[in-house]
């Protein structure tokens, strides 16, 4: 793990050291928050709303969010749409293959809890948080692009509150 997560411990006893760590932390968090590249991955109706959110009227690019097709370069994953049992291992593999500071937005009812396909369906995974850790749950079927923006702002706020120390362990265990 980068040495940086042990930095705050050393800087404690250096006079004025905490100012250095907090400002460094703020800069790193700020940069990470304002350039979340999202993975181009959408399964169902929420993918159409994600496309509209990326288009001219709602425009993700204002937040610096730019789509990347390969998980290696993406750091935010929209689980947009229903995850069936056949798709679940693939979603888990895609999440695993993303580079480390990664965040997940469970977009739409189907990703949060199975949505309209919770009852009587033999093929739908009841919520994506059963296989991957989720940062923000976004209800709606499909959620409006504005609420998708709000979810992204929530992720950005969450990123801005992260501490340097907890970089050593995988924050979500």
């Amino acid at each position, binding site marked *: 793990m980068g040495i940086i997560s042990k930095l705050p411990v050393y800087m404690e006893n250096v006079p004025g050291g905490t100012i250095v760590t907090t400002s460094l932390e703020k800069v790193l968090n700020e940069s990470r928050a304002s350039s979340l590249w999202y993975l181009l991955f959408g399964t169902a109706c929420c993918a159409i709303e994600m496309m509209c959110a990326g288009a001219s009227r709602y*425009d993700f690019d204002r937040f610096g969010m730019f789509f990347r097709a*390969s998980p290696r370069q993406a750091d935010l994953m929209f689980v947009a749409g229903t995850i069936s049992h056949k798709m679940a291992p693939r979603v888990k593999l895609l999440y695993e293959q993303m580079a480390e*500071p990664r965040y997940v937005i469970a977009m739409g009812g189907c990703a949060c809890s199975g949505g309209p396909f919770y009852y009587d369906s033999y093929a739908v995974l009841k919520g994506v948080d059963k296989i991957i850790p989720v940062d923000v749950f976004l209800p709606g079927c499909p959620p409006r692009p504005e609420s998708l923006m709000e979810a992204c702002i929530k992720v950005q706020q969450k990123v801005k509150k992260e501490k340097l120390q907890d970089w050593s362990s995988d924050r979500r265990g």
Partner: protein
Amino acid sequence: MELTPLFQWIDTQLISLVEWLGLPIWFAELLEMVLAAVAVLLMAFLIVLFLVWWERKLSGHFQQRLGPMRTGWHGWLQTIADGLKLFQKEDIIPTNVDRKVFFWAPVVCFASSYAAFAVIPWGEGVIPTDLNIGILYILSITTFVVISLLMAGWSSNNKYALLGGMRSAAQIVSYEVPLTLSVLGVIMMTQSLSMVAIVEAQESVFSWFIWRQPLGFAIYLVAAVAETNRAPFDIPEAEQELVAGFNIEYSGMKFAMFFLAEFLNLFLVSAIATTLFLGGWQGPFLPSWLWFILKTTFVIFVIIWFKWTYPRLRVDQLMEFCWKVLLPLAFLNLIISGFLFRG
């Protein structure tokens, strides 16, 4: 407001410093060259930061949307944020990858496109070194990019990367030939390969080589766009076909290096275009380096404009276009300029 007096002042300071340290005199020149290299590196870094932001804003306004707005006023901090974020991204080296080649591919890619800046004339007397084989040096050093793309494509042991790497190698290698042929036309007129000589041969606006070599300029621009894997020729990282082409397995800073090298190439190619065809730093009232920056930015604008209007060519159409259209045209241009500029 020329920069040459500034450089003289720096020279004198350096020499006095070296003498004070009691070191041999050639050490001052060495120090000066290193300073020039670092200055060009900083300048190149700043330019890439500007270009990435500018392309996202331009593409936004082409497509009736705003582009980055939130990070800083009109998003000018956006690329710095991207860079810093990529600093913090984990660097994944997949298991079945050829580790050494995988590691050295971005280094070769960045080093080769950066090394070509040694002979770019930024302004009056503002040139790291005026080699007497300037343009030939640039054309030869930029072919190393092909090697780095092949290294990246082959070593990441990924079928999409292999396809992307092979395609980019074939494309850049094929478009190298018309590119060099179109440059020959200019050399015939200036009788010298050195970049400064080429620029000095184009004093007034009417003596720019673009008027006497229109076909040469057209071939150069098309081949240059293909050389930097952009716009209608961006098949190596065609997102729709090959997901992310050769840099599919790269993450974190290694990916940032490829990203940096791509934009450096874009700036390099437009800088050569201004030096060869648009009269480099020559221009009325404004200081010379400002003219150079303005003209290069204009050429970059045109290349960015290509990207957001044209669909992508297929591999075989692209190769056939090069060998069956561009190459004969380049020969034709050579023969015509042979007859016209007999001296």
